[in-house]
């Protein structure tokens, strides 16, 4: 009998976490799915209206803007953060003298929340008081940088700030990956006569595949949660040019009292996220079968 219980200990240990997640994540997703089919406005309601919210949702211009923005933003954000992180990691890996000093500089933005840095970035990017004005006051009159005020370009300023925040973290992950590479492989390549650039391009970077995947998970997680960033930086503007699904969902659920539509946008967003993450997870867990 006691042995039986012992056999179950691992499962019992895992159970609380599993239950918590089951309720607080999957239960809530399910609940949102339910809400998205009801006529909920300010508070949840029981009135079943089928897919009406979804139909309404896709008729909303701003929802489409939000989806397009999410696409642009997450692609650029993930791509640039990854490339920049990798690039910095490679540079730092060249036996750099002040590495211990530079690393925290690259890394620290991850420690700040956008509530904190939002104002600084907003100022910094504002043509009237920020970098443009500063350059003007230094006599470089032709300098122009007013993306944050330009509906077409504003989304890219969100990218700039987001990349600023997390590329250092990605750098750390890649640096760890680079440090983990067997030095003999580098030596073998050196012996083959390959120049540094080729060694990285042909050998080192392909070996970083697991790091690419891990950083993708972290960045995707952050991209989805870009809410604070957008609110702090542009407030969704100019106009609604930087609307994102997260801000859209928030405003429909909490300020416009259209909880049903908000929930349906949440569900669409979850579907999009899961359709990217689940295949990754699957391959990850599958390859975990080696032993």
């Amino acid at each position, binding site marked *: 009998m006691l042995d039986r219980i012992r056999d179950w200990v691992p499962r019992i240990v895992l159970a609380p976490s599993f239950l918590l997640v089951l309720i607080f994540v999957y239960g809530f997703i399910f609940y949102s799915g339910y809400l998205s089919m009801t006529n909920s406005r300010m508070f949840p309601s029981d009135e079943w209206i089928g897919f009406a919210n979804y139909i309404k949702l896709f008729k909303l211009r701003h929802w489409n803007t939000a989806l397009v923005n999410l696409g642009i933003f997450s692609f650029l954000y993930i791509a640039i953060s990854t490339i920049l992180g990798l690039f910095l990691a490679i540079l730092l890996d060249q036996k750099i003298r002040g590495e211990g000093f530079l690393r925290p500089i690259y890394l620290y933005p991850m420690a700040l929340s956008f509530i904190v840095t939002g104002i600084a970035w907003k100022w910094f990017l504002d043509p009237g008081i920020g970098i443009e004005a500063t350059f003007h006051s230094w006599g470089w009159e032709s300098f122009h940088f007013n993306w944050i005020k330009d509906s077409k370009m504003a989304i890219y300023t969100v990218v700039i700030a987001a990349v600023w925040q997390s590329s250092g973290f990605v750098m750390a992950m890649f640096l760890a990956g680079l440090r983990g590479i*067997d030095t*003999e*492989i580098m*030596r*073998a*390549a*050196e*012996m*083959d*006569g*390959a*120049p540094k650039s*080729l060694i990285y391009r*042909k*050998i080192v970077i*392909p*070996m970083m*595949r697991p790091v690419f995947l891990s950083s993708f998970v972290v960045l995707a997680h952050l991209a989805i949660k870009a809410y604070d960033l957008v609110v702090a930086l542009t407030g969704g503007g100019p106009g609604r040019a930087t609307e994102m699904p997260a801000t859209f969902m928030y405003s429909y659920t909490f300020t416009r009292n259209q909880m049903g539509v908000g929930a349906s946008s949440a569900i669409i967003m979850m579907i999009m996220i899961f359709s990217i993450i689940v295949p990754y997870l699957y391959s990850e867990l599958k390859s975990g079968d080696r032993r």
Partner: protein
Amino acid sequence: MASLSIENLYKSYGNVEVLKGIDLEIEDGGFLVLVGPSGCGKSTLLNTIAGLEEITSGDIMIGGKSVAGLPPSKRDIAMVFQSYALYPNMTVAQNISFGMEVRKVEKSEREAAIKRVADMLQIGELLNRKPGQLSGGQRQRVAMGRALVRDPQVFFFDEPLSNLDAKLRVDMRTEIKRLHKRMGTTIVYVTHDQIEALTLASKIAVLKDGYLQQFGTPAEVYDDPINMFVADFMGSPSMNLVPAVVKVDGEATSVTLKEAGGIEFDLPVHNVQGLSAYAGKTIVLGIRPEALTDPHGADRTSDQIVERQCMVDVVEPAGSDTFSILHLGGKQTIARMRANAQVTAGETTTFAFDMAKAVFFDQETTLRIR
């Protein structure tokens, strides 16, 4: 193909001195094996010759020319790494041809070269696999292949067989020997396996703590060890090193041993002049397991076989041989007997000592007494 010579080489990491004045020279087409216990500096020496590590002082010459300041790619060498260091993301064929690609060799030429080494190493069917899909022995061959497509002045092997199991090891060893014979390229080879060292080398360098202990042919190192360290290190099972007392009786010199049973016996010694200076003192007698055997197994060509009775402590039949463990001079001593020699643990048996193969060392300096 080129000769290699190393002059008074020093190498430090920070203030840790790893190589302390190494002098070596290997002729064109020679096979130099570096041996020594773990951490003695073998890989470091190899890396400095290859140009992968900077040296602190001294000089390295390949083909008579100093290579000081040349990067590895300019030294015209090829290397097989201990961990193989295969590029995990490339196929076997790509691994082999990467160096040529870098050197912008024509595609057709590259393919011919790949085919040549693939045939030589019998890895033709593996060419499209990735290293992750290969067994240890196959990886080893690919790593060799990568070195062999080149036609360098010198080949370097850093413990290339240490990850293989015994059977594959023997096969690969023979393969390397044959390759060397065929291509005639100078080879520098690191190992801590004595058998490998002895079978492959034209010259062996024994290192310890960054000092060169002995440098010579395998036979010199095995039969004529310069000190106790070399004697003990080379050979497996290693040489028995037994304290004994020198007895000089006119012309005749002999050494007295104490056996486990409490019996003392003498062993006559010929042609070791140096011993007379130690009359009455304790020295160390070195005798290899194969020179201490059952009378039937003793070398019929030797003229110094002496038979003595000893107590057997443990018997280890090992298929091809039977090892008997006895106690001489208070030390555990191994005798290698024929597979079907009749010995029983705990009983006294007759052993044949081949004194022609015995060597003697000073207890203090550990140096050979000649």
